[in-house]
C-alpha cells in the first residue's frame, strides 16, 4: 500500500531532493507531488486513483497549512490507515506536539545534508512499510501467508 507516497511540499528544492532520495532508497515506491495542502483531501477522496499509504507533509505552505491537512485527514475514518508523516526543519517542540495532537504518525527532522536526508526518509519509509501486512521488504516474513514475489 505504501508503494504510493503522496508528497505535499511547496519548495522546488525539497521536491527534487525527496524524489532523488526515495528514488535511490526505494526505487519501487511511486511518488506523487502536491504543492499545497488544499489538494490533499480531493486527491485522497478521488476513488478513480490509487490511494497512497503514506503522506509526507511539509507544515508551512501557502494556502492550507500542514496542521489543517492533518486535522482534516484524521476527521475522516476512511483514512485511518493512512500514515501521516510531517517532514520539517522546524525545531519547535510545541509544533511537534500540535501535530501529534492533530493525529500525525511521525514528526521527522528534515536535515540539510543529503546523505542524512536520504537516510531519514529511507528509515521512515522502512519503519512504516514494515508495519503493514504482506510487505515483501519485511525482515522476517509473517508466518503462513506468502510474502514472496513471483
Amino acid at each position, binding site marked *: 500500500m505504501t508503494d504510493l507516497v503522496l508528497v505535499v511540499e511547496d519548495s522546488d528544492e525539497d521536491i527534487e531532493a525527496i524524489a532523488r532520495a526515495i528514488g535511490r532508497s526505494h*526505487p519501487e515506491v511511486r511518488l506523487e507531488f502536491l504543492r499545497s495542502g488544499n489538494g490533499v483531501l480531493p486527491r485522497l477522496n478521488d476513488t478513480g486513483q490509487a490511494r497512497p499509504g503514506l503522506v509526507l507533509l511539509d507544515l508551512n505552505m501557502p494556502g492550507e497549512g500542514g496542521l489543517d491537512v492533518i486535522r482534516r485527514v484524521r476527521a475522516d475514518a476512511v483514512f485511518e490507515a493512512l500514515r501521516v508523516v510531517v517532514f520539517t526543519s522546524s*525545531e519547535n517542540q510545541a509544533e511537534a506536539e500540535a501535530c501529534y495532537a492533530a493525529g*500525525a504518525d511521525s514528526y*521527522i527532522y528534515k*536535515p540539510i545534508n543529503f546523505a*542524512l536526508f536520504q537516510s531519514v526518509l529511507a528509515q521512515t519509509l522502512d519503519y512504516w512499510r514494515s508495519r503493514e501486512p504482506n510487505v515483501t521488504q519485511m525482515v*522476517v*516474513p509473517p508466518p503462513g501467508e*506468502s510474502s*514472496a514475489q513471483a
Partner: protein
Amino acid sequence: MTEWSAALHRLWSAAVVISSREQLAELVLPPLQELPGVRAVWGLRHAVQGDTVLAYRWKGLPLTGDLRDLVERLAPGEAGPARVIGAGDELREQGVTRVVAARFDQPGEAGGTILVALDDTGDAALVGRCLEQVIEVTHEAVRRLSEARVDQEQQVRDALLAEASLQMDAVLDTEQTMYRVPRMAVPAIAEGCLVFVYEDGKPVLRSAVHVDMRLLGRLLHDPDAVQSLAEPGEHALELRARGRVIGMLVFLFDRPAGRIPPPAFLRDLAARAALAIDNSTLYEQRRQEVARMQQHLLPTRLPRAGGLELAASYTVGDRVLEVGGDFYDVVVRDDGVVAAVIGDVCGRGVDAAALTGMARHTLTALLQEGLSPERALTRLNARLRLDGSWRFITAAVALLRPHDDGYAVQWTSAGHPAPVVMRGAGGASRGSGGGVPLGVLDSPQFGSSTLRLSRHDTLVMFTDGLTESRDGDGQMFEQDGLARALDRLGGVPVQTLVDELSTSAEASDDIALLALRVRAEP
C-alpha cells in the same frame, strides 16, 4: 552456450549497478530458469546469524507452504561449489528429479542460496557450472551493495554528528538542547531516543522522540516502563560531561541488528550531547545568578510618595551573562521632598556591580540625609576619584518639591540622558541633560534644569539602554521610536507605561526606567 554467455554478460552489467538487494532476485533467477530442463529456480536469503531464512524468491514452481521446509533442508549449510542432490518423492511428484544448489556468504551480510530444480532432461553438470557463475555474480553484487551501504552509513553518521553539533551549539537553552538531541537522532540512527537527566540522584525523563508518535505516547503513559529504560545497558548510554554523569541517553531500535550503529558512534553522540546539555545548564545557572544578583542591586520596592505614583522596570539586555550597571532608587525625605535617582555604571560584571551598589547607596543615603543633589553627586565623584576607579558613572537626580497642585522638579545631571515629561493632557517633551559623568573630573560638572509637573503629568527617567537601542533597520530608538511609543502610551497606568516602553525598544544593553506621575488628588 552463446546465449548463456550473453545472458551472463547482461547479468554482470546489471548486477553491479543495482542499489538494493530487493532488485537482485529479479536479475539472477530468470537466466537460470531459461536453461533447458529447469523446472524452478529458488532463492533463499539467510539471516546473518542462525538458520532463519529472511526471504524466499522463486521462478517456476512457487516456493510456498511445505515446499519451503523441504527446500531449506536441501540447501547446503555452507558456501562452496554447486552440489547435485537427488530429489525425494515430494519433488518427484512435481516432475523434479534433481536439485543443483550453491550458497555464498558475505561477512556481516545475509548469505544466499540458489537452488535449481531439474527434470529428467536437465544437464546437472551444465546447470552446476552456470549456477556457480550466477552465484559469483550475486556474491559480487551483494559485496558491492554491502560496501556502498557501509560507505553510506558512515556518511550518514558523519553528517549526523556534524549537523547535531551545529544544532546543539546553536542554542543555549537547556530544554531546546535536550529536545534537539533525540530529534536529530530519530529516525536516522534509531527509531526512538530519550534523554534522562539526574535530579537528586534519580533519572528524570526530559525529552523523548520516536518515529511513531503514538507508540511513544502510549509508552510515556507507563511511568514504570519509562523508568526501566533509564537502566544502563548497551543502548542506554551515560551522559558524561566534565567528569560527572549528568544523565542517560537511551536509544530504541526497531530495525535489523545489522542496521544498528556501532557502539563507538553512539558513545560519541552521547558525549557531544552531554557536553551541549551541560553547557546550556551551566549557562542557565549563570543567567539565574546574574538575574538574582541584579535584583539585589535594585530596590526591592519603591517607597510611598504621597502625591506621586511610582513605577520602575529593569530589562536585562539580550543574552548577557554579566550583571549590568544600571540603577535607580527613590527616597522620600521627612519634609515630603522626593529624590529620584537613576544612574549607569559603565561596563558589566562583578566590578561594575560592586560600584553600582556603592553608587546607589551613597546617593540615596546622602539625599535622605538632606544633602542637595549637587553635593551628593560631588561626594560620589570624590569617592570614585579616591578609589582610582577607571570606571565612570552617568547619574541624575530629580528632586521633586510640592508646588501648587503639582511638583517643581530640580533636575541635576552628571552626563546622564535627559528625562521625558509626559503631559497628562497629551504630548511629551524632553528635558535637558548635560554635565560630565562622575569619576572623570576632580571637580565635577553638572547640568541643571527645572521642570514643572502638574496633575497627571509624568516624569520618565531612563538609562541610555532605552534611547540607544536599535530597531531591525538599525535606527536608534531615540530618533523616532521613543516619540512614537510615548504617543501610544499617553494615559496608560504608570506601571504599564514603563513596562511597555522597555519592551518597545529591542534592548541590546540593559534598560532601567523610573516613572513618577503626579496623582489627580494629593
